[in-house]
């Protein structure tokens, strides 16, 4: 339970779930609101840490962009990419060489 401290409302939880394309039932939504408030309350402690002028770290080591050779069908390491057939083999629904999804445009 979130000791009454509200950071995120149930309406906001519903909004975030829509952003994440995550269907939630009413029970889940209530329970998640409680749990997220508990967790976010704990996370508020970060505001104690002075971070003015501190550069954010997205990645721990200096990286340079890596380009592979511009060849079709091969990975950077030279190994072959999966065939079209293999790439389609895990799809829930396919037709010819396509992934099938519900109709988007009427």
């Amino acid at each position, binding site marked *: 339970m979130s000791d009454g401290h509200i950071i*995120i409302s149930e309406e906001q939880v519903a909004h975030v779930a829509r*952003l994440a394309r*995550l269907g939630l039932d009413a029970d*889940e939504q209530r329970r998640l609101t409680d749990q997220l408030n508990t*967790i976010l309350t704990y996370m508020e402690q*970060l505001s104690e840490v002075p971070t003015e002028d501190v550069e954010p770290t997205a990645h721990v*080591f200096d990286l340079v962009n890596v380009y592979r050779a511009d060849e079709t069908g091969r*990975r950077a390491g030279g190994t072959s990419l999966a065939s079209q057939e293999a790439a389609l083999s895990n799809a829930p629904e396919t037709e010819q060489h396509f*992934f099938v999804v519900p*109709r988007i445009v009427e």
Partner: protein
Amino acid sequence: MSSMRPIHVLREQLVSGTLNAVALTEAVLQHVDAVEPELNTYVTVTAEQARQQAAEAADAFARGVARSPLQGIPLAIKDNICTKGVRTTCASRILERFVPPYDATVMQRLQAAGAVMIGKANMDEFAMGSSTETSHFGATRNPWGHAEYVPGGSSGGPAAAVSAGLGAAALGSDTGGSIRQPAAMTGVVGLKPTYGRVSRFGLVAFASSLDQIGPLTQDVHDAALLLQAIAGHDPNDSTSGDVAVPDYTEVLDRGVRGLKLGVPREYFVAGMNAEVEAAVRAGIEALRQAGAELIDVSLPHTPYAVATYYILANAEASANLARYDGVRFGFRAAEPADLSDMYMRTRAEGFGAEVKRRIMLGTYALSSGYYDAYYKKAQQVRTLFRQDFQRAFADCDALLTPVSPTPAFRLGERLDDPLQMYLADIFTIPMNLAGIPALSVPCGLTTDGLPIGLQVAAPPFREDVLLQVGATFESITDFHTLKPDGLPVTCKGDGYGL
């Protein structure tokens, strides 16, 4: 097979001919059949493929061409590492039937070395958890403590498999402690390499700036052998480091005389389990007696580790898991009304409660209006963690800490309290935030007979120092030889060989 021997011992027997690779794999498979109903360490057992690989290894030994130390060695592979033609589920319903069309780089390397894969080991769903209870395929049980406790997580399947002799060693992955914490809780050795030391190509992504594959083994020597096989630059992973890989077995008998070992005061906090603290302090003292110089150091941002990590890791996870939409692979909800309904229900039905919680936290932390307060702030604190370690390593060669504030807990005990579960990772998360390597070695048992781990951490790409300290620790203690039935194999007295 409950007395499964380490890789380097099996190797001698395989080379001398006193052990046959086919017989070894058969014995492991039989043991798996016998104890799996109780422990549930594997999601998929690949018996047929294992027998074929073992036969090939036996043939190589017969022809005298078995040159790799891993030839014929039976291994458990965490089920988030892609294996061509063998389903890779991440212990999630959404990937229950996913069969990768390619092998992870680490799998290509293990196959080239002639290793045998026994199966795909259980884990927390998408590696999100610290107990292996969030698996879609049911919890794994700790071989210690009469199977009443969790094995830790998220690599609980690999850890329990090694502990119970269901493989000579294993590969796991570690995003915030997922190799080291289960290793500590099941009495085996676990090594999280430097970020970039081992290719992540083919590791199903959880938090891409933190994830790293590493070994779980019966002793430090084996960790050196397995790391040797998988370490090194990979052109297929642009984040893998182009840094030379040393011979890791060379450092194993160097001792610790002359090494400066830092003991960070923030890792011994009020409220931690007294038996864990006592065992870890005794381990540190043993290393001092072996010739190391102990130094008091401070890592002042340690208390903020959990908050920082659970913002960053979940933010990355929420983006990485956006690909599970029911279109190209994995589960799709039945008879969707339209595209949006397909996304919403596929993800609602395909993901478990912990994964949903983390996607929600991560999406919130990245959402408009909250990004600066959560995500950017956590990235800034991450910089402070890196600086903490840089300062500490200016004064010492390695750090000694506990792995987890508590030993293994009982099944179900923390499932309804996610924050309590997250706090279990406080001593392992900082190394992932800083990208540095760390090792867990067994350093004691509680009065309930549950294993305790000592953590060693080193500067980037200095896994050799971890192995040097770990091997020295094993040379002066017997804890790594203890087996889950509570009966030590060679242990005398209190584990210090006294």
